[in-house]
């Protein structure tokens, strides 16, 4: 089998299996378990197939391009160390699958469980055989993700949800730190390839960014390996089904951190910083975990803290400046996996058979499940470091290192042996508590189930693991020796120290320490009996330091309350501040750009002031300021004043040679006025409240509010002044510069000769830049459709539903307001005149449309004029009257208009010309003479039709609201005074 295929299969198989398992029906327990087991075994076989290469000191390597430009490739790489871990992942994986088959209830959706488990196995394998740092971080986060899913598997339990969330939060945070660390390492080394990185140890350690990389990488490792102070997640992860705990929380996931520290040990370790961070974390974790473990009442909780402690031990070993310590760490990692997995499984069996894991309730299970009891006893003894079991040997090595190794700072050196001894004693104590508490003592009394031995196959994995413990404990060199050797060699290479895997090293200090620890542990357990029987939760002295509570409180505070406060400070949901910010930013951006380079008027001398236009602008300015002044309380006045300002703008357009603009602006003015008036009817009435300053106790508050209002107004005035000044300055600067001439020249030259029209503006609109116009009419159409849609759902406020008081007589009766209806004599003359005007206005519109290409006019203004003619009929004749007589189909107008415009554009295609290529010619008609035939005219007719339709659609839809309201309220309504004016509250600004 080629290496590449083997490696690829190793990663892909579990994921493929996960997908298949996920698709199985939820009751297919056996199929899922069989699939998972098969995949685990095949994977194990694949790992084994790599043994010959690895044993010979070789490395299997395969590289697949992924993002080659960024140096991220899928590199799969198995050396001795990776091989060892891969074997552990797949081997224990196979055992856990077997165990889980019997552990999981058939009521659970087991296929999903195995799917997650397989995916986790794949991710873990991915970490282990990654040959690229980023890829390693990639799989790293995947393990966090799938462990989250596995912990939360029983998500109907709050503990599972909380545990899963905490685990994910902490480990994913670490993972992100690791990702950052890998990026920094990549920056230092210049490559993410593991082989390159491993060859660049000196460069890494001497780089100024070493410390940054170290902290980030170590953060990743420590969180994953549940090292102080990140250990809090592991005990709560025990809410997971026990096979998960056995697999993830003893053998694999938590070992990922260890794996990483070992992997990078050759290039990152050996510095004081490394020793401080890794060593200190390991030391604290070792002692603290062991101490807390003693006082756990939950079997799995006890094992969890014990795991934390043992991981601390390994971490501590890795923090020492000693190759031998590294070997010990690898060795203990394997040993711990064996005994801890079996212990978890045993705990799971107890839980499964008795229905509880509470040591206080359990007792004397030795009698009902003797075989399990023996297995657990051996495993616990291994954990306690009893001789002739695997734990003993690695612990001996640990003691030796604790006594001899070089540590960065001397005080640490002094306490190290004592700490090691203390932790070992604790370890004996909690092992004893596990065994004694569960299996010995009187018969249990209040167990949920009657205990008995589990199914044989459920016990089988435990038996295998315990057998391993014994075999390694008795014959270390013969059993595990070669594997440990290739692993250590692949990490340390030439620096691999001489070590001896023997049960007996003679009487030495480590042995003495072992004996002391065993004795001390037993003594401590006896001494603690009374206290433990009280059944209090948590360890004495530090009970208040409950990790989860601190974690949750912090999370809630930082990730929610603080975030909320800050978000509210930094953001807003109100419009006024938003606009202030937008305008302020614009002023700053524009002003800042000018400020940096210096502002200057242009090169042209200003033209003399025409007093007439200046005076016109006095009027315009007065109107604008007046509108700003009046818009709050006198809306109609503001509307009228805006009309005045608009007129001044029109005159300005005429003044400066833009008749088309003036025409358009005028028609738009008229329609906008009508439009806003139509809207005004639905706005609440508002009158200036006349009452003066605070009369009563509210005086001060009102005063404060007024000061605030005044401040706000002042600020807004500042923004307005800034915007006005900025615009004025920019306008002046632009106007006094030589105007651009390139495009102007072009358009003027070709308007007639190539565009076929003498009105250059119109030729630009319908030909040179007809695409703009096409877009513009789509805008108008879209807006018309949107307003129509919105008005279909329009619900007026209750207080504006009533008939306006203007329409009531003195006695409250509602009078008519449409020509031709009774009581509307005052409309007689206007009605006659406006009806006669209708064809006249339409004629003028057609005139404007047809001449637009050559003279001021065009489709847009013509369309507006027609729309105004129709609106006029609505105004004077009323909706019903008009719609009885004029069959308007705004949608048809809109559609046809757009179609004409687009069709004119498309008509160029058959001639092999681009969209909107125009065509014009003069046709000589008999009697009439030369007539210009320009495709642009058809385009303009399209614009015309669209404008008619869209304007009518909007205005008529708006006008119909009144009709609807009238129909909703009877014509002769009761005389309700409509005087519910809303006076302004103080501070409304």
């Amino acid at each position, binding site marked *: 089998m080629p290496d590449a295929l083997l490696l690829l299969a190793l990663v892909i198989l579990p994921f493929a299996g996960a997908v298949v398992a996920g698709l199985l029906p939820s009751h297919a327990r056996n199929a899922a378990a069989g699939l998972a087991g098969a995949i685990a075994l095949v994977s194990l076989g694949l790992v084994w197939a790599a043994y010959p290469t690895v044993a010979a000191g070789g490395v299997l390597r395969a590289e697949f391009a992924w993002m080659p430009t960024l140096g991220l490739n899928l590199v799969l790489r198995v050396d001795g160390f990776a091989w060892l871990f891969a074997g552990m992942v797949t081997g224990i994986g196979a055992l856990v699958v077997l165990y889980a088959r019997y552990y999981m209830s058939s009521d659970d959706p087991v296929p999903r469980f195995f799917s997650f488990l397989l995916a986790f196995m794949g991710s873990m394998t991915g970490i282990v055989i990654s040959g690229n740092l980023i890829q390693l971080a990639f799989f790293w986060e995947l393990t966090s993700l799938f462990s989250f899913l596995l912990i939360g598997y029983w998500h109907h339990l709050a503990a599972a949800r909380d545990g899963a969330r905490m685990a994910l939060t902490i480990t994913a945070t670490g993972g992100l730190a690791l990702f950052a660390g890998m990026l920094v390492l990549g920056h230092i080394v210049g490559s993410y390839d593991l082989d390159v990185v491993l060859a660049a140890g000196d460069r890494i350690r001497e780089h100024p960014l070493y410390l940054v990389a170290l902290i980030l990488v170590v953060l990743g490792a420590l969180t994953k390996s549940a090292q102080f102070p990140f250990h809090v997640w592991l005990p709560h992860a025990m809410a997971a089904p026990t096979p998960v705990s056995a697999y993830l929380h003893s053998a694999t996931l938590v070992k990922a951190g260890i794996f990483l520290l070992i992997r990078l040990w050759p290039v990152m370790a050996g510095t004081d910083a490394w020793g401080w961070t890794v060593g200190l974390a390991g030391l604290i974790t070792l002692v603290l975990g062991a101490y807390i473990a003693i006082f756990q009442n939950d079997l799995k909780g006890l094992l969890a803290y014990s795991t934390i402690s043992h991981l601390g031990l390994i971490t501590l070993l890795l923090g020492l400046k000693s190759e031998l310590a590294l070997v010990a760490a690898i060795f203990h990692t394997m040993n711990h996996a064996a005994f801890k997995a079996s212990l978890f499984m045993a705990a799971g069996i107890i839980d499964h058979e008795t229905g509880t894991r509470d040591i206080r309730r359990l007792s004397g299970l030795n009698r009902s499940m003797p075989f399990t009891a023996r297995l657990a006893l051996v495993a616990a003894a291994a954990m306690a470091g009893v001789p002739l079991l695997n734990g003993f040997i690695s612990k001996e090595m640990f003691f030796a290192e604790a006594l001899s190794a070089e540590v960065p700072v001397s005080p640490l050196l002094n306490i190290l042996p004592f700490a090691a001894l203390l932790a070992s004693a604790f370890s004996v104590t909690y092992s004893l508590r596990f065994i004694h508490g569960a299996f010995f003592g009187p018969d249990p009394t209040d167990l949920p189930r009657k205990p008995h031995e589990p199914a044989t196959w459920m016990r089988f994995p435990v038996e295998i693991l315990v057998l391993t413990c014994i075999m390694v404990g008795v014959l270390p060199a013969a059993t595990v020796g070669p594997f440990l050797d290739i692993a250590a060699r692949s990490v340390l290479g030439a620096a691999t120290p001489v070590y001896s895997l023997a049960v007996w090293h003679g009487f030495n200090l480590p042995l003495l320490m072992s004996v002391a620890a065993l004795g001390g542990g037993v003594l401590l357990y006896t001494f603690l009996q009374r206290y433990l029987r009280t059944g209090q939760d948590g360890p004495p002295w530090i009970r208040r330091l409950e990790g989860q509570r601190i974690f949750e409180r912090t999370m809630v505070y930082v990730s929610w309350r603080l975030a909320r406060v800050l978000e509210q400070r930094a953001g807003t949901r109100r419009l006024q501040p938003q606009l202030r910010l937008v305008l302020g930013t614009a002023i700053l951006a524009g002003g800042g750009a000018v400020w940096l380079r210096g502002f200057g008027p242009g090169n042209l001398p200003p033209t003399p002031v025409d007093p007439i236009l200046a005076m016109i602008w006095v009027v315009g300015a007065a109107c604008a300021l007046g509108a700003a002044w009046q818009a709050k309380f006198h809306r109609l006045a503001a509307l009228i004043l805006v009309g005045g300002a608009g007129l001044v703008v029109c005159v300005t357009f005429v003044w400066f040679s833009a008749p088309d603009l003036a025409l358009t602006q005028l028609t738009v003015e008229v329609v906008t006025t009508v439009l806003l008036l139509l809207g005004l009817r639905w706005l609440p009435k508002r009158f200036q409240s006349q009452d003066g300053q605070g009369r009563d106790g509210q005086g001060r508050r009102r005063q404060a509010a007024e000061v605030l209002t005044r401040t706000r107004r002042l600020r807004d005035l500042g923004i307005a002044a800034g915007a006005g000044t900025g615009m004025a300055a920019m306008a002046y600067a632009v106007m006094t510069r030589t105007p651009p001439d390139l495009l102007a020249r072009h358009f003027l030259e070709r308007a007639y000769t190539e565009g076929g029209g003498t009105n250059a503006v119109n030729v630009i609109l319908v030909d040179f830049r007809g695409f703009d116009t096409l877009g513009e009419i789509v805008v108008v159409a879209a807006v018309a459709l949107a307003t129509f849609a919105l008005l279909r759902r329009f619900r007026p406020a209750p207080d504006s539903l009533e008939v306006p008081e*203007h329409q009531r*007589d*003195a006695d409250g*009766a509602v009078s008519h307001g449409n020509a031709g209806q*009774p*009581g509307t004599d*005052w409309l007689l*003359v*206007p009605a006659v*005149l*406006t009806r*006669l*005007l209708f064809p*006249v206005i339409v004629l003028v519109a057609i005139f404007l449309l047809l001449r637009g290409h050559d003279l001021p006019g065009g489709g847009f203004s013509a369309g507006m004029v027609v729309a105004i003619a129709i609106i006029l009929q609505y105004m*004077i004749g009323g909706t019903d009257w008009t719609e009885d007589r004029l069959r308007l189909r705004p949608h048809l107008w809109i559609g046809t208009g757009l179609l004409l415009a687009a069709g004119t554009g498309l008509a160029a295609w058959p001639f092999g010309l681009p969209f909107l290529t125009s065509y014009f010619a003069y046709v000589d008609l008999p009697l009439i003479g030369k007539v210009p035939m320009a495709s642009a005219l058809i385009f303009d007719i399209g614009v015309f039709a669209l404008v008619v339709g869209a304007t009518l659609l909007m205005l008529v839809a708006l006008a119909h609201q009144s009709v609807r309201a009238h129909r909703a309220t009877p014509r002769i309504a009761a005389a309700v005074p409509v005087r519910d004016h809303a006076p302004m509250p103080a501070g409304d600004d």
Partner: protein
Amino acid sequence: MQAAELPLWAAVPVSVLLLLGAGLALVGSVGLLRLRSFYDRIHAPTLGTTLGIGSILLASMLFFSVLQTRLVLHEVLIGIFMVVTTPVTFILLSRAAFYRDQQEGNPEVPALPPRQDAPEP
């Protein structure tokens, strides 16, 4: 073509008409400002909308007809349109003011007659 090319015989009446029209419009607007009540004021702008416009339209017609040496008459349209459209505004506006004042019991307008709904004709 430029205004400078206009012969004096045309320039004189054009000037007179322009000044007359603009003057009337000004007087009308001054009236709008100076007269005391709305009903008085509403009469003032009529100066501009009648004789004022008429003079200026005439001036324009004369000016362009001479300038372009052809009859330019389209100004007549503005005159016609003004005559036809102004009553609509004024009728609506004066009636609105009248109505509002009546509702509010303004002594300036005749009091609201005790009104029966007029039977349909």
